């Protein structure tokens, strides 16, 4: 009986022109998402290589390690380009300096605004639209449509247990929608290595998990649709209701969450923080200038004495001042940054909390976690850059004997011979390592669990609603 009902469900859904058309469109979109992702990776990879080469090249011929302009770049990852998350919004280029705060710039969108337009072709976005619409389009009348056609009455004139019926509905619809969608997904997966995308085992595993999350998400909207259709008498009503729910889940809740949390939690703007830092800096300068003046007043260079010795003393004094100032500055800046960061975290947590009311946000969070493009990406990149900064500073110190900063390089007379050019390849290489799959998968577990929970709740809802449904 169960099999018969499932088979009927499959045939009823798949045998329609509506299905053929919708499936065709969805397949094209999914394939396009894979294609655009892969192309995107190729382009990003090429840009990344070029930027690195350029970085080395512009250093060639320089003779002083203290004067180089060194940049590091966030390398593209195969999954990052498929599920872009925030990877296009954050600055990928970081100007290296031996001390002080690092700043990243040149986000993908920034460099290439047209790219922002194509963000909608990312796999996560396509899934979140395609899967949910697909489910709603084919399950909004799962129960009440049968009633309208009189087939519910006719079916229940036979010894059919209601539980069997509703189960077969859900299973049948899930198979009818889910299995065909595997085709474009699998073709898309085959495309990746063909297009030369270096997918690691970890990347494959996590891509599979993204697809799994997509299917859980499909399940959410499917059970929800069946649930709503078992709560209503008319399919036109359930369709309207589901459309409203869809708009809220996909469009409104994720955006409002950000708005609401933005209103509720005040985070000082970067500009404000920078302003405060600059003011503090100016104040420190003012104090130091006074000290410098005092120094030269109290220790005037003796007319006949050794000018060089005086200069050395003065330099030592300045260097000390500078060290103290830098320490103060970095303390102050660190505190401001941390305060801002804490406020930001509170805001973020609130936004995510509200956004998680929508299964679409939950899916999006799960898949960006899995792809390593969640909000954590920025954090990880900054951390990696900061770690690199230490290595870099160490390297420069070894090369120049000074940690940089305010250096007074005394250029001697012409008689000093030109130092040999530096070899930029000696620079320590910046390696950004993606966190392990275990870490990323662990990050996604909470949201995957939420998707399962959504499924269970709507499934139970559909089940109970149908047990009480008036089949006449």
């Amino acid at each position: 009986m169960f099999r018969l009902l499932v088979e009927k469900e499959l045939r009823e859904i798949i045998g329609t022109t509506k299905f053929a058309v919708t499936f065709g469109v969805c397949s094209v979109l999914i394939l396009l998402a894979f294609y655009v992702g892969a192309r995107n990776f190729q382009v990003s990879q090429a840009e990344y290589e070029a930027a690195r080469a350029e970085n080395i090249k512009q250093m060639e011929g320089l003779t002083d390690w203290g004067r180089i302009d060194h940049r590091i770049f966030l390398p593209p990852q195969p999954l990052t380009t498929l599920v872009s998350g925030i990877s296009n919004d954050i600055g990928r280029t970081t100007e290296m300096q031996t001390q002080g705060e690092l700043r990243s710039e040149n986000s993908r969108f920034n460099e290439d605004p047209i790219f922002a337009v194509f963000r909608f072709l990312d796999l996560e976005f396509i899934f979140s639209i395609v899967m949910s619409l697909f489910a709603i389009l084919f399950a909004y009348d799962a129960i009440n449509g049968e009633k309208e056609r009189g087939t519910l009455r006719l079916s229940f004139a036979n010894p059919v247990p209601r539980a069997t019926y509703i189960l077969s509905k859900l299973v049948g619809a899930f198979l009818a929608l889910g299995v065909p969608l595997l085709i474009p997904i699998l073709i898309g997966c085959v495309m990746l290595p063909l297009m030369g995308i270096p997918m690691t085992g970890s990347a494959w595993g996590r891509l599979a998990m993204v697809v799994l999350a997509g299917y859980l998400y499909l399940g959410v909207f499917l059970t929800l649709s069946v649930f709503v259709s078992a709560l209503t008498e008319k399919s036109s009503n359930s369709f309207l209701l589901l459309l409203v729910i869809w708009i809220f889940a996909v469009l409104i809740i994720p955006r409002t969450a950000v708005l609401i949390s933005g209103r509720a939690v005040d985070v000082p703007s970067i500009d404000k923080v920078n302003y405060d830092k600059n003011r503090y800096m100016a104040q420190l300068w003012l104090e130091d200038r006074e000290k410098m003046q005092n120094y030269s007043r109290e220790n005037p260079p003796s007319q006949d004495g050794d000018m060089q010795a005086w200069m050395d003393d003065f330099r030592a004094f300045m260097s000390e001042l500078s060290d103290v100032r830098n320490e103060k500055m970095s303390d102050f800046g660190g505190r401001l940054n941390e305060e801002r960061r804490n406020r930001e975290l509170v805001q973020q947590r609130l936004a995510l909390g509200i956004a998680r009311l929508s299964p679409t946000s939950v899916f999006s969070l799960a898949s960006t976690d899995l792809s390593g493009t969640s909000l954590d990406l920025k954090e990880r990149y900054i951390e990696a850059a900061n770690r690199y900064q230490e290595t870099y500073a160490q390297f420069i110190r070894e090369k120049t004997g000074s940690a940089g900063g305010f250096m007074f390089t005394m250029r001697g007379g012409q008689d000093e011979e030109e130092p040999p050019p530096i070899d930029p390849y000696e620079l320590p290489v910046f390696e950004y390592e993606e966190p392990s799959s275990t870490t990323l998968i662990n990050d996604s577990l909470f949201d995957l669990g939420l998707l399962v929970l959504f499924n269970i709740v709507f499934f139970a809802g559909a089940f109970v609603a149908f047990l009480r449904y008036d089949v006449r």
Partner: protein
Amino acid sequence: METPRPMLEADGLTKRYEDGNLALDHVSFDVYPGQVYAMLGGNGAGKTTAINLFLNFIEPTDGEARVDGIATHKEPLKAKEKLAYVSENVMLYPNFTALQNLDFFARLGGNTKYSKDDYRQVLLRVGLEEEAHNRRLKGYSKGMRQKCGIAISILKNAPAILLDEPTSGLDPKAAVEFIRLLESLREEGKAILMSTHDIFRAKEVADVVGIMNEGNLVMQRSREELVGEDLEKLYVEYMTGYMDEVA
């Protein structure tokens, strides 16, 4: 002439809907195997309610409906094994062909041994031309769909058949053929309960005629008792309430 045990029994059957509407008020009647029981009555008299109670689509407020001695609200699945049903205005699955619709419902009713030829024969028997058998139902007329519905009920091969206005939508020729069909089903020993507005056909085929009015069974006569009577006149007499309403 009849076997002692009725196949369909309404025993003090009462239904009060949630809104307080008393749709059926202690109605009792029996339908024996090999008998056609025609239920007449105006719109809202309670005919569909009675049939729905036999199918356990709704729970009785009082009394019970029994199929072959089984109370339908106590053992619905068991009772439904013995019931075939034709509802009014059944649309069936518009994307399935007639054969596919028949196959699905036959299997759902537990009959897995039918062949395509069996389906074709039944469809021909209810007057659906061969040409239509492999067409999707969305191109069907109301009467054609009704014929499919009737074919489905025949295929169930159940001892009791419930028909809710089965001839609605049928053209005169098809309606006559339907009467012939009922007669042959009666020959096979089926117990048939049919609600209808078609007084003439009811008189032609029914072994017992019951007239319902506002939830009450106001008249019940056997074929013998109706010989020489003008059923239409009787109907109007018992239905004055309804006629007043219309006027």
